[in-house]
């Protein structure tokens, strides 16, 4: 065991680099996924069949095909057609497309969950279609979609471990290296579990903070400061609403 600890200490700088790679993949993939999710989620609600049909096809395709296969396609097959991307770019694009497809369903569902009266009020006030979504509907849908997006973000983090197969030295790869150095499978994969858990937990905390803020913005729930301090929530919040 002390040998293992020594190996772990020796491996820490490399493990740290692995964490950086995993975070780059996760945050890059999540950013791309979010943009795609909002775009596809909005398009899925469009009245025009010319917009809705391709959206449906894209979503079903990227949701329905394996992330590993998508990674391999981008990494090994696209170069055959003379289109070569770096490993990191491939990882981000694949994660973005895959989780963007899932996310679009979350966005679509959240938009549908905003009370129809809100849409009607924007129409009665002659607000344009883009403006009504940006200023009125999305801020309310945003508060609803965050918990579901948190789930996807955690899944995306764990899905990023597949990047090892496109030659990226992420956490998963470095854990493998640790196993080789220590020849202790139990120990090295236990470290692996802990590292991924810690990363996931940090992401969850961040998303929870976003959720509290988003809810606060639509006039529901306590402020972030109140939550962090665990102070009792003043009863006046939300009271009096008929």
């Amino acid at each position, binding site marked *: 065991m002390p040998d293992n600890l020594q190996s772990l200490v020796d491996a820490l700088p490399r493990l740290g680099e692995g964490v950086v790679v995993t975070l780059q993949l996760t945050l890059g993939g999540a950013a791309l996924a979010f943009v795609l999710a909002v775009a596809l989620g909005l398009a899925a609600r469009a009245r025009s069949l010319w917009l809705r049909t391709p959206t449906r096809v894209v979503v079903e395709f990227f949701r329905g095909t394996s992330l590993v296969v998508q990674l391999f396609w981008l990494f090994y097959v696209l170069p055959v057609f003379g289109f070569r991307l770096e490993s990191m770019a491939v990882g981000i694009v694949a994660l973005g497309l895959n989780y963007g497809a899932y996310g679009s369903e979350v966005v679509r569902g959240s938009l549908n969950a905003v009370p129809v009266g809100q849409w009607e009020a924007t129409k009665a006030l*002659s607000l344009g279609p883009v403006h009504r979504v940006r200023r009125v509907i999305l801020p309310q849908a945003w508060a609803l979609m965050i918990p579901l997006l948190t789930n996807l973000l955690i899944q995306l983090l764990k899905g990023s471990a597949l990047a090892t197969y496109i030659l990226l030295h992420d956490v998963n790869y470095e854990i493998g290296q640790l196993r080789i150095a220590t020849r202790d499978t139990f120990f090295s994969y236990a470290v692996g579990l802990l590292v991924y858990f810690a990363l996931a937990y940090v992401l969850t905390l961040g998303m929870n903070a976003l959720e509290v803020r988003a809810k606060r913005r639509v006039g529901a729930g306590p402020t972030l400061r109140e939550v962090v301090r665990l102070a009792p929530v003043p009863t006046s919040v939300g009271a009096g609403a008929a």
Partner: protein
Amino acid sequence: MPEPHAPTPAGDPTGAPAIELVDVVKRFGATTVLDGLSFAVAKGERVALIGPSGSGKTTILRLLMTLEEADGGFLYVDGEPYTHEVRDGRRVPIPEKRRRRVRRRVGMVFQQFNLFPNMTVLGNIIEAPVHALGLAREEAVARADRLLEQVGMADKRDARPTALSGGQQQRVAIARALAMDPEILLLDEVTSALDPELVVDVLEVLRTLAETTDLTMLIVTHEMQFARDVSHRVLMFDRGRIVEEADPETMFTAPTHVRTQAFLKAVLG
């Protein structure tokens, strides 16, 4: 207060009615809610629509706000075709761009208020004037402050809608609709979702509004006293048809149709 007067025929550029419905049909699935309904509302006229639930009153307002699409017939605002017109002998929908121009003259207050929870009271009121009418922000704020004063909500200017009572929310919603400076105001059962003690304030605001402006108003309400006090004319609806039409005095004291008599007896006791 303008005298109650008969609606003028459509097409007359000087005296076109503010609102005219011609042969309007509306179905929801297999149910026909409106079956060839026609009536007109003159400029500045306040018309109350009364009748049992499901008689199509709210549907009329929703058609006029283009929240629903008529299955047949025509809607005119100031004599101008609004949602459909006849071209080459066929009834064709009018493109959204033209509808939008007409829609700006129409405002609506909803039963459920529908204030935007992500904006303050002031934000709710200035949003559309600034972004849909292109008013300068200062001008919109000045207008909003004036309207908040008018509806007795000036002290809640920076509050969130969720922190207000239903009656307060509805008064803000009235100010929000008025901030668009509409020619026509549609009131859809604006007190139905309120606790009884909050109804008075909202109705008081609307009474004052009726007395001090020449806004054309179409009022769907179950508050018979209110309908009687503010309207020039009352239309009694039953199953999507106007069964009786009279000035408020006559309607509430000497209704002639048996359906009206039964309805008024049921709601007034």
